[in-house]
């Protein structure tokens, strides 16, 4: 009689608890937050004095004169920023994938992932402002200006600066997501086959590889779309002011001392959610249309060889402008932070001074402590949850749970401004609003997806024969995890931790709302200075805001090299 034999799979034990816990921590706050927005949007929130359903919040929202412009801004900004950054990303990859320039471009762009959106936005603002570096470089010889011209290049009513600020930050994100996808779709050989048939580099890649790559990066693209439509911190720095974007106005209503405005804010947040859902539906339709047109184009047989001499340099120029804008912007921030006297149109200040750094030292120190505490706490929790989920998947020897992978994106696709107001109200009712712990839990909702995304590929790529050998030497599953797998994945764990930490540092809205304005991090303090126009002060805080995640990234890259200096097999 045959015996039912055990296989490599084993009962997962306590790690079986991690996936439900993760789902709870990701989906729970989002769903509770959405409920906490929808109820007061229809007048119901006993804690705020709303006891009956009514349409008053919607009437108040309707009565706001800026509504039409704010809705238009949200839609235009989201679609334009997403389409432009996706197009530039695909163009860069199509034109240069597999070349040395491509390796250079990706190496230049990847550190930008750790850069907070707000710091990049401040940098761009300093670059394109009427008294910014571009105007200074062209004055007075080309422009004739001997004082800053009077026009709105930042905070322009059409939102162009906002779109630009989003594009330069989303290109590195989409580029890295595309790079990860390339390995999964056999891109190099497909592109090669197309070229042996006489296709040009760009058109061959677009026809043979791009559809499969796009299928892999769809969720990140949706995240970019939802984020661009509803971002608050970048909009406060670069976006229009009268009226502001819908998301900024919602936060304004949330922060009014008169709590009755929270009902209007809830109606606005519900509208923002509906807008994002609607635009995502529009994007789906666009995908269908682009797919149909693309199939006609791909099967039409045109080789497109003459496109290459135009599109390849264009891709390089666009990549250069995008990366250059960020790096020059950051340099501008650093110089402003130590600038003494700096007259227009001089390119560099007449004198330098550390006065502003000294003046802010105490505030900076306190904010760094709070920021680091929240970042470390949320990152550690995210690492434990991600490792637990991945380890369970390994122990039961089942392939990736697709539902969990899709759910990971939920907090990235539901706009922050659509559920954080609800979560804030709930935290207030529960009496934990305004605490560092509550802010760390709110950060975890956004840190966990990025930690999971950063860790899952190297985790799954690990050679599982090391586990087999460990077991055959008598080690149980926990010893294999702690003594073999985790040490071997040190580099991936540290990079995932750095990504998580950078995500936490960059969070503006969860800190502001759940922290009830009482938890001051580098990001909330820096963004709060946006309206002040004090460039030296903004420079100090923005430099600190980017220096903290950069330092952690440098540590994450440097530490494994140090720990495993004598282990060549652990080199990347």
């Amino acid at each position, binding site marked *: 009689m*045959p015996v039912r034999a055990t296989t*490599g799979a084993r009962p997962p034990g306590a790690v079986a608890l991690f996936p439900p816990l993760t789902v709870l921590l990701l989906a729970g706050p989002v769903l509770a937050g959405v409920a906490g927005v929808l109820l007061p949007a229809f007048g119901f929130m006993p804690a705020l004095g709303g006891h009956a359903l009514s349409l008053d919040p919607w009437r108040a929202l309707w009565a706001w004169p800026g509504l039409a412009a704010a809705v238009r801004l949200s839609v235009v900004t989201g679609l334009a920023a997403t389409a432009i950054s996706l197009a530039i990303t695909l163009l860069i990859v199509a034109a240069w994938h597999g070349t040395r320039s491509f390796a250079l471009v990706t190496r230049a762009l990847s550190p930008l992932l750790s850069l907070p959106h707000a710091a990049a936005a401040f940098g761009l603002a300093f670059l394109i402002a009427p008294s910014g570096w571009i105007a200074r470089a062209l004055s007075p010889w080309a422009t004739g200006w001997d004082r800053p011209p009077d026009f709105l290049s930042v905070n322009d009513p059409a939102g162009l600066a906002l779109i630009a600020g989003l594009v330069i930050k989303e290109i590195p994100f989409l580029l890295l997501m595309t790079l990860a996808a390339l390995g999964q779709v056999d891109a190099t050989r497909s592109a090669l086959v197309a070229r042996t048939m006489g296709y040009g580099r760009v058109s061959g890649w677009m026809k043979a590889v791009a559809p499969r790559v796009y299928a892999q990066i769809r969720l990140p693209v949706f995240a970019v779309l939802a984020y661009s439509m509803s971002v608050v911190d970048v909009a406060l720095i670069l976006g229009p002011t009268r009226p502001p974007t819908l998301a900024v106005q919602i936060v304004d209503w949330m922060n009014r001392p008169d709590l009755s405005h929270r009902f209007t804010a809830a109606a606005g947040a519900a509208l923002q959610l509906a807008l994002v859902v609607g635009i995502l539906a529009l994007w789906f339709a666009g995908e269908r249309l682009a797919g149909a047109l693309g199939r006609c184009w791909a099967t039409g047989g045109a080789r497109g060889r003459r496109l290459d001499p135009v599109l390849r340099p264009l891709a390089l120029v666009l990549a250069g402008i995008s990366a250059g804008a960020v790096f020059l912007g950051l340099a501008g921030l650093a110089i402003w932070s130590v600038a003494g006297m700096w007259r227009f149109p001089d390119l560099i200040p007449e004198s330098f001074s550390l006065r502003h750094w000294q003046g802010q030292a105490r505030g900076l120190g306190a904010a760094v402590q709070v920021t680091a505490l929240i970042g470390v706490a949320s990152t550690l929790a995210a690492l434990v949850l991600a490792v637990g989920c991945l380890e369970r998947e390994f122990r039961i020897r089942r392939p990736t749970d697709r539902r969990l992978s899709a759910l990971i994106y939920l907090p990235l696709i539901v706009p922050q401004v659509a559920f954080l107001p609800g979560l804030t109200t709930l935290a207030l009712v529960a009496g934990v609003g305004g605490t560092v712990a509550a802010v760390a839990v709110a950060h975890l909702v956004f840190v966990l997806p990025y930690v999971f995304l950063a860790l899952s590929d190297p985790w799954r790529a690990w050679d599982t024969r090391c586990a087999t050998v*460990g*077991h*055959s030497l*008598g080690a149980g599953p926990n010893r294999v995890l702690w003594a073999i797998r985790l040490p071997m994945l040190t580099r991936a764990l540290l990079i995932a931790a750095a990504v998580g930490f950078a995500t936490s540092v960059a969070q503006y809205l969860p800190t502001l709302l759940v922290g009830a304005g009482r938890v001051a991090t580098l990001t909330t303090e820096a963004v709060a200075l946006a309206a002040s126009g004090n460039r030296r002060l903004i420079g100090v805080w923005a430099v600190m805001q980017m220096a903290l995640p950069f330092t952690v990234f440098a540590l994450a890259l440097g530490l494994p090299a140090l720990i495993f200096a004598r282990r060549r*097999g652990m080199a990347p």
Partner: protein
Amino acid sequence: MTLELDRITIARDGAPLVSLSARIEPGQVLTLMGPSGCGKSTLLAAIIGALPPVFALSGRILLEGRDVTALPIEHRRIGILFQEATLFPHLSVAGNLAFAQPRRTPDRGARIDEALAEAGLEGFGPRDPATLSGGQRARVALMRTLLAEPRALLLDEPFSGLDTDRRARIRDFVFQRARERGLPVLLVTHDAEDARAAGGHVLGVDGLETDL
């Protein structure tokens, strides 16, 4: 110590892949031959207890007369050597050996030195595994497997990565250590020279005796 495979069948999606019965006496080598992809490595995975869930196994695996078919890998005490020595890259040579020692081993350090000396690798303890030659890695991997005090030894083409000259020496070294300890050995290979050197019976995955 004997290793017995009692009417083992491995099927994937209902299609049988491997089907055999065999008995390996202490110190003897049974060789399993066949082209790559025929299911040899799947059989080894089944014997150590690491069969992926897509496969279905029936039959019994007996070690010293005891049925180990339902035990997890770490309780079977069946050692395995892969073609790539699979040394843990984050540990030193001595660290790899120490990982294999049972917790209550007395004189852990002295035993590691003895094992290294037996393998002709005196003083290699602090070395980085990545700096060893292929033959040295194979010897460290064997000593690591033996330090875990296995009761049977499986060899998954462990000599394929070595050049002809070194191959013969490592092969003799492995077979001799296994004989001294009275371990039953199952060798999987597609190389007739390995099979001849092993000196025992040679089977295919269908369980039939093969002529060299």
